[in-house]
């Protein structure tokens, strides 16, 4: 089985990389981009039957830093 974990900076945490991307899009002539937030996607290839609680534990302990980030688990 596979799972996909989406990790994003929390709302309110400055994302200078996203901000740089927003500036670049504006400079390229794409108007109306009000905000860009950059995160990461982590794909996990897992033993069949791995439960979501175990994946959540992986997120809490390593994949995300919950001081600054949120995560969302997507089972594929």
């Amino acid at each position, binding site marked *: 089985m596979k799972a996909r974990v989406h990790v994003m900076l929390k709302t309110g945490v400055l994302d200078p990389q996203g901000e740089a991307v927003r500036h670049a899009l504006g400079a390229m002539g794409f108007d109306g981009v009000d905000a860009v937030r950059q995160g990461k996607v982590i794909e996990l290839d897992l033993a069949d039957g791995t439960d979501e609680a175990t994946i959540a534990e992986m997120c809490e302990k390593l*994949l995300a830093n919950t*001081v600054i980030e949120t995560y969302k688990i997507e089972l594929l």
Partner: protein
Amino acid sequence: MRAAVVVFPGSNCDRDLAVAFRNEGFQVDMVWHKDTELPQGVDIVGVPGGFSYGDYLRCGAIAAQSPVCRAVADFAGKGGYVLGICNGFQVLTETGLLPGALLRNAGLKYICRTETLRVASTDSVYTQGYGAGAEIGIPIAHHDGNYFADQDTLDRLEGEDRVAFTYATNPNGSQRDIAGIVSQNRRVLGMMPHPERAADPVHGGDDGLALFRALGGVLAAA
């Protein structure tokens, strides 16, 4: 007096830190990241700067899960002294020994230069050798030194006099200009600037020396 300096794959300030400890009379053991325990009788553990595990995932994230970090956390839990510098500070926040996190510098650039720091608290073994409010020149060298914590945590750090150092001119966007903080028991210090790179006149400055000297003085007397 004995110090242990942790070495991760990618550490690059470990030997500089060992020299700074040795110059103040410490016997220094280098401890590999796979080691599951610290040498007997260690007084302080240094977690050095560098790029542990290539900074993969997040700076310090994978190092924080290494076997030696469990031993360091146990050591700190029993009241041991731990000094984390630069990547070491990032590791200490990732282990939860210190609150907050280090984000990408607000200006997105890696910054390598000497910054003026203010000694914000002299109430620790690390900072008691400085005058209150003293301004010292210490090099920084980081891409992810932008200290972040929620407002409650920042208020608590300031209220408990746990901000050890602030930047005179904020180089990286750190909340409340924070450059270094101590744990609640004041025995764990994490700081982004490198005192071990300003610990000898040949470094071009020795404002970091007072940190190691004070530490050595306290631990020798203990």
